[in-house]
């Protein structure tokens, strides 16, 4: 990462750019962006932590687990898959828990690893990106994002089964 910073600044110097002036200008815009996304973050993260605290996700996990198991998905991965789109911190905590309890080289450990590597926190990205420019109608973004997430979950199980088991 520092290499890229040095490279960019180096090219800037060579091309006679006022690098510090440019940096300050950009950093100021960054600060403004943070100001624009703050309300979105507070609203969304509070709602997600309320949902987690209410036990709704645990209950949903209990409902889905038997179905998932019948389809060859280990039960342990269900809460990770459910939490991943809405909470980065929450799903990472679950990932770490599974790696610790079952081991990173176990079947479930490998699946959650692949899942964590191939998905992003969809809700967070949508809320922050649209929130920053004041867009209220996100149209089919969420649908497309969740389709991608679902595909990633299915494929993490499939690929681990096919190539690593």
């Amino acid at each position, binding site marked *: 990462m520092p290499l890229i910073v040095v490279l*960019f*600044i180096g090219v*800037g110097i060579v091309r006679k*750019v*006022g690098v510090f002036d*440019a*940096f300050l*200008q*950009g*950093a*100021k*815009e*960054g600060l403004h*962006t*943070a100001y624009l996304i*703050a309300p979105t*973050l507070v*609203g*969304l993260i*509070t*709602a997600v*932590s*309320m*949902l987690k*605290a*209410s036990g*709704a996700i645990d209950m949903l996990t209990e409902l889905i687990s038997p179905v998932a198991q019948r389809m060859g998905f280990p039960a342990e991965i269900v809460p990770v898959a459910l939490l991943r789109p809405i909470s980065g*911190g929450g799903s990472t905590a679950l990932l*770490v828990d599974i790696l610790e309890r079952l081991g990173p*080289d176990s079947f479930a*450990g*490998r699946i959650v*690893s*692949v899942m*964590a*590597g*191939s*998905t*992003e*926190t969809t*809700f967070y*990205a949508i809320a*922050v*990106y*649209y929130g*920053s*420019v004041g*867009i209220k*109608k996100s*149209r*089919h*973004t*969420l*649908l*497309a*994002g969740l389709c*991608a*997430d679902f*595909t990633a979950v299915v*494929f993490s199980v499939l690929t681990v089964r096919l190539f690593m088991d």
Partner: protein
Amino acid sequence: MMNYIWAGMIFLSLVFSLFTGNTQEVSQSLISGAGEAVELLLSILGVLCFWSGIMEIAKRAKITDMLAKIFAPVLSPLFPCVDKSSEAMHCISLNISANLLGLGNAATPFGLQAMKELQKLNPIRDRASDSQVVFVVMNTASLQLLPTTLCAYRASFGSEKPFEVIPCVWLSSAVALLVGITVAKVLCTDERKKG
């Protein structure tokens, strides 16, 4: 959309807490959750400022120009409404490069900048344009070439081969990205209306 989801989440947590008896926890989380959000914001604030500054240097030094040319063959068909040499395309290219390199912290400020540029081309202020939908969907999928944080976690819990999951990660993220973009593109109706 967000109105219903947000209200739904809060409403559901209240209803569920009555069933599960977690009412105390829910009211606690209302306070701690808001605090968490501010902590998260503060933790990314420095990085956001720093990388936005670096991005401005990259723009003025015409580095983003170069990246945009490299990614043009892939990006032009995805964003037919965005001019190849426009500021928006430069920002998108920089965001994608940062994502591929696994610089998640840098990718977000670049992505937010790209949204700002795309918003300038958006005719309806409060409604996402086709390009914005595709761009956000790309950012909800994972584009990382080397998932370093993940491998570090695996190594720290004693994995024999922390990197062995990478081919599976590539395959599932590639397919997921493809599905996401396909859904986004198929349901994008604005461009066709214009054409």
